[in-house]
């Protein structure tokens, strides 16, 4: 048996197809196709959760996406646990484990429910006011307690084992919503030849037809027509039908994000299927057919389990075959609830009374009620309810009070009217307009190429809605170039309207009362709270919302916003539009992080770039460091060596024998064209015209403001071809910087830039034995000092492979940078290593590279410069061509502030105790005995232990530093003050003779 409340012959589920699941450890039986909510109601379970603030017992309110109460934890296994799942959306599968939330120790007995008794103290704004004093208590006492109480559900503590997918799709027409209007519009557009995507959040298309059984289309029952139409659409080549797919975000240029729940309803999903798929749709036209959402009545204690929307009760009955109770009360302000009462009565459920706050219900309602033997109390209101974990009775009074009567019920269904779902329209930046006649916000001015149809557009009559839908589908298809006519006509009959009803508090919950009449169930906001907010001075709905948190829960106020607005407007004695409507923002319903991140997890979180020689370095024990997206070999420790020992050895070895270093990550740009040299003259401070092919030069690139942007060695390969190198991290931005200037400032130049960073693998061979190592491998290049001096670059072959061989040095040693096509990087590296190792050379990493260059006072842009350093500051005045009329940054460099004498200048620092290594970033002062804050002269930019110098070395930017040579300065640290002497920046081979080897 799939629940005592299952009505034989009602609903569309198959009685034989049962599935079992657990809720809070109890085993229940459901039918295939049930939602968790329908399955629990079928089993007589209405208590499904506790409210957020007061921990009040709550049951299911709706049967769809709007659900504020029945939020649960759904679990497949420890890693796949999802909190805050709406029981009305989650389909039951065999073996599913559902758990209630926000209760301890159990759902039935919840200690936190004491908050309900304390509720007079927890009025709106309570947190803002109460925890202001004493100030010291905030951090230690209030915040931890509030944080502990905040939030709903428990997040999983293991990595999610599901995977998620993404899909971009382009279409002529996107239809949001698969009800009668959405389907009609999609069919019309598709038959007109447009490519169509139609999505709906439910498992099956049909929308309101799932419960509205009085509708026929082509003389066919509404939901059957919907199924057939969906199948017809799915069979068309130009249509994509997406069920269980929620359009949650509407962005610019008709870019709409959909979240498809692919496996959440399956007991044993195929491992290759993603749990969810994010669809990013670019549509030429969008048709919004999102229907309307029913509102609840706002009266005292309207939140007990068993009290729900009339449309929910009707869905449970007509779709799932579940009666929501055996003695049902009805409380309504419009005609919709009558239909639910009639349907219930027809299957034998006792309807105790229909309480209608209106004096005159719609045409024919009273006579049908009379025919069915249902008592209708017009001009009456439900003013209170009773029951602990489920409603047991409703108190009915005449409007204005009097004649109170308590009627025993085990369920109460209610309808205050329908709110058109303008969420998507509003997200598209359309402006909603207040319709005074029907007292509703409806789509007004459109901002994008979209149209709203049916209930979300305020269209009343079914045939009119269908006609509107077909016209919208045909128009959209025609607008995107569809040539065919759909020739579609759908005869529709039945169904109720969407207007009428009330907004705001009902009789007995007015301004003169103190009852708990809930407006926002999930955030426990009552009518009284909203009035308090107005009294406290919140006169805009945006302020009321934030003060009370009305509409700020995960349901985003789908049932509460209009009520809240009406109550605030009433308290302010204004019309609703004068108080404003809060903005609708994405997402329409909560979206998982998995769906948003989709493929971007683990190795796909971000590209990890590896050089052609990465594998060799790995095999030789390299420790890697991250440099932008690159993995670079940091150092190569031998057995027993720590980083310090390995770097000391590598540094010594390079200067005594040689070292081999992977410099492949250097940015490289090929600058080609007759104006190549002219362009470089404009981009760099140096002059390039006189550089001969086969020679290279160190260049500095500035920004317009005169500060150093990048540096690197540039080789002239031919008259019209330069090989530019940049820093590793700077490669992409330097190319953009150059391209930007080329296109916007110097478009007259015949020159082009091509990134070749990855074309070349670069093997630096540095040290006294560098030439000896590579000489036997090189063809067609004379390596002698005369033919190939320091700062030259020649083309030839190495190991039979074409090479651009650079004689350059970032170590101060004689050395080469061997550029070979990347496919040959590893093989040439291995050939070089085969020669280098027996000669006593080592492989070295980036740390040794850093130390060696610091020993020579070579800067690293971004370490020794920080975007406020000029070439003069860095001691690189020699690299500025004095005779050039123009280059990027020339005017910046003329600013008085940039030529001042007391600017921070790059100097060397030697600690008085040679063994003390300064901390990079440490501040430098002249007088450590000043009171704090001391006058700071600058900071340490680079600092290392230098094995080659036998002491620590450092560089620092110090105000007026070059005038302070030989002076003693101080570096104050938390535990001591370190004395330093200001020196030049070159610590090793000051005359620079070794490069000439």
């Amino acid at each position, binding site marked *: 048996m799939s629940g005592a409340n299952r009505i034989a012959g009602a609903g569309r589920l198959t009685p034989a197809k049962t599935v079992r699941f657990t809720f809070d450890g109890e085993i229940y039986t459901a039918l295939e196709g049930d939602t968790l909510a329908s399955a629990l109601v079928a089993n007589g379970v209405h208590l499904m959760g506790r409210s957020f603030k007061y921990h009040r017992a709550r049951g299911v309110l709706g049967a769809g996406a709007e659900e504020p109460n029945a939020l649960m934890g759904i679990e497949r296994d420890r890693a796949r646990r999802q909190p805050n799942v709406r029981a009305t959306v989650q389909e039951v599968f065999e073996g599913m484990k559902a758990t209630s939330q926000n209760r301890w120790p159990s759902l039935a007995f919840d200690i936190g429910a004491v908050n309900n008794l304390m509720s007079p103290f927890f009025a709106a704004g309570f947190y803002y006011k109460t925890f202001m004093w004493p100030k010291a208590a905030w951090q230690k006492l209030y915040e931890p307690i509030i944080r502990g109480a905040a939030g709903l559900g428990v997040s999983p503590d293991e990595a999610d084992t599901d995977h998620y*997918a993404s899909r971009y799709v382009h279409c002529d027409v996107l239809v949001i919503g698969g009800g009668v209007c959405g389907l009609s519009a999609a069919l019309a557009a598709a038959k007109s030849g447009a490519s169509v995507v139609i999505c709906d959040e439910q498992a099956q298309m049909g929308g309101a037809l799932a419960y509205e059984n009085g509708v026929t289309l082509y003389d066919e029952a509404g939901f059957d027509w919907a199924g057939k139409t969906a199948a017809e659409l799915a069979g068309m080549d130009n249509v994509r039908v997406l069920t269980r797919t929620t359009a949650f975000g509407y962005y610019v240029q008709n870019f709409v994000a959909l979240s498809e729940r692919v496996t959440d309803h399956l007991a044993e999903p195929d491992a290759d299927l993603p749990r969810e798929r994010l669809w990013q749709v*670019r549509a030429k036209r969008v048709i919004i057919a999102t229907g309307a959402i029913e509102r609840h009545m706002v009266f005292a204690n309207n939140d007990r389990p068993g009290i729900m929307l009339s449309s929910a009760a009707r869905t449970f009955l007509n779709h799932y075959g579940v009666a929501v109770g055996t003695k049902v009360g009805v409380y309504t302000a419009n005609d919709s609830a009558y239909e639910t009462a009639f349907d219930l009565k027809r299957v034998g459920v006792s309807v105790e009374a229909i309480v209608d706050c209106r004096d005159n219900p719609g045409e024919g309602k009273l006579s049908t009620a009379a025919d069915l033997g249902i008592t209708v109390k017009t001009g009456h209101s439900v003013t209170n309810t009773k029951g602990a974990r489920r409603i047991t009775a409703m108190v009915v009074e005449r409007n204005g009070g009097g004649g109170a009567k308590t009627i025993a019920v085990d369920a109460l269904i209610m309808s205050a009217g329908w709110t058109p779902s303008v969420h998507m329209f509003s997200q598209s930046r359309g402006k909603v307009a207040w319709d005074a006649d029907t007292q509703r916000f409806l789509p007004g001015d459109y901002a994008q190429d979209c149209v709203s149809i049916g209930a979300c557009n305020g269209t009343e009559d079914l045939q009119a809605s269908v006609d509107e839908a077909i016209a919208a589908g045909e128009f959209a298809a025609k607008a995107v170039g569809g040539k065919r006519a759909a020739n579609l006509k759908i005869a529709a009959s039945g169904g109720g309207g969407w207007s009428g009803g009330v907004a705001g508090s009902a009789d007995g919950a007015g301004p003169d009362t103190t009852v708990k009449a809930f407006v926002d169930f999930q955030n426990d906001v009552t009518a009284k709270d909203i009035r308090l907010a107005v009294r406290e001075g919140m006169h805009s709905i945006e302020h009321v919302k934030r003060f009370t948190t009305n509409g700020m829960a995960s349901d985003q106020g789908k049932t509460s916003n209009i009520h809240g607005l009406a109550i605030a407007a009433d308290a302010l004695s204004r019309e609703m539009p004068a108080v404003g409507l809060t903005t609708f923002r994405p997402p329409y319903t909560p979206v998982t992080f998995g769906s948003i991140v989709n493929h971007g997890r683990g190795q796909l979180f971000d*590209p990890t770039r590896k050089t052609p020689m990465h594998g060799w370095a790995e095999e030789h024990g390299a420790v890697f460091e991250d440099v932008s997206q690159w993995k670079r070999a940091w150092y190569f420790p031998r057995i027993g060596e720590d980083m310090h020992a390995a770097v000391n050895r590598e540094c010594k070895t390079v200067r005594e024998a040689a070292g081999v270093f992977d410099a492949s990550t250097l940015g490289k740009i090929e600058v080609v064209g007759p104006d190549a040299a002219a362009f470089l003259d404009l981009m760099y401070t140096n002059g390039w015209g006189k550089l001969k092919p086969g020679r290279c030069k160190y260049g500095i690139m500035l920004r317009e403001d005169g500060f150093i942007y990048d540096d690197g060695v540039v080789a002239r390969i031919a008259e019209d071809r330069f090989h530019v190198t940049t820093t590793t991290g700077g490669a992409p931005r330097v190319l953009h910087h150059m391209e930007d200037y080329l296109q916007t400032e110097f478009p007259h130049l015949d020159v082009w830039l091509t990134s070749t960073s990855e074309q070349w693998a670069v093997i630096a061979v540095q040290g006294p034995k560098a030439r000896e190592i590579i000489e036997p491998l090189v063809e067609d290049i004379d390596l002698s000092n005369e033919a190939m001096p320091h700062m030259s670059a020649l083309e030839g072959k190495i190991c039979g492979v074409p090479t651009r061989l650079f004689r350059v040095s970032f170590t101060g040693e004689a050395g080469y940078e061997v550029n070979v096509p990347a496919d040959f990087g590893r093989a040439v590296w291995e050939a070089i290593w085969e020669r280098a190792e027996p000669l006593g050379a080592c492989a070295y990493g980036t740390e040794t590279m850093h130390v060696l260059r610091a020993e020579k006072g070579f800067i690293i842009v971004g370490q020794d410069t920080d975007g406020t350093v000029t070439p003069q500051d860095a001691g690189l005045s020699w690299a500025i061509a004095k005779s050039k009329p123009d280059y990027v940054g020339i005017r910046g460099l003329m600013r008085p502030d940039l030529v001042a004498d007391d600017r921070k200048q790059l100097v060397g620092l030697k600690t008085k105790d040679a063994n003390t290594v300064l901390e990079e970033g440490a501040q430098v002062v002249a007088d450590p005995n000043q009171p704090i804050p001391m006058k700071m002269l600058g900071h340490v930019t680079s600092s290392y232990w230098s094995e080659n110098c036998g002491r620590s070395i450092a560089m620092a930017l110090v105000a007026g530093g070059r005038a302070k040579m030989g002076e003693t300065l101080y570096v104050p640290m938390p535990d001591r003050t370190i004395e330093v002497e200001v020196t030049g920046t070159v610590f090793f081979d000051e005359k620079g003779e070794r490069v000439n080897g």
Partner: protein
Amino acid sequence: MAKSEAVQPHYPLEGRLGGSAFVSVSPGEPASRLALRARPEALASLSKALGVKLPEKPKTSTRATAVKAKGRRAAWIGPDEWLVIDENGADLLAACDGVDGVFSAVDVSNRNTAIIVSGAGAEATISAGCPQNLSMDVFPVGACSRTLLGKTEIILLREAEDVFRVEVWRSFSAYAFAFLADSGRSPMM
């Protein structure tokens, strides 16, 4: 080692294979590639020298018809930019030597590597990470574009209705391959 004996290359995606019943993801064969930039006046002579007509219509590519240039194609990448690919590894840079006109030819054979995505699910597999419209009416056989795949830049060429060539920079190729292998698990066709 004798100087003339060339060492062996190592290709970035060697040995990888990915995909599912719907799609195959595999490394492309080594090829030579030329990044070509040129002024309009140089197009005719460059087309002649390369044996393949440089397309002037955006997002299209052409294949060489001459027997000597078989396996060569030119893809329009930008208003003055082309990627020329030769599957037989011909020296494309040398082919441009001495051509009249203002242009820039740069060998990028080893900068890029290719991933071939083929099968009924090929379009859907790429559409997981590529925001462009890849339907046949907008991106037909021969179409090409510099675009995105997930977090990396690619050049995409449609070689047949269900065969795409993804050109990607070498160090991003492991990411691109893994992305396609992941999205190819269950492409939504």
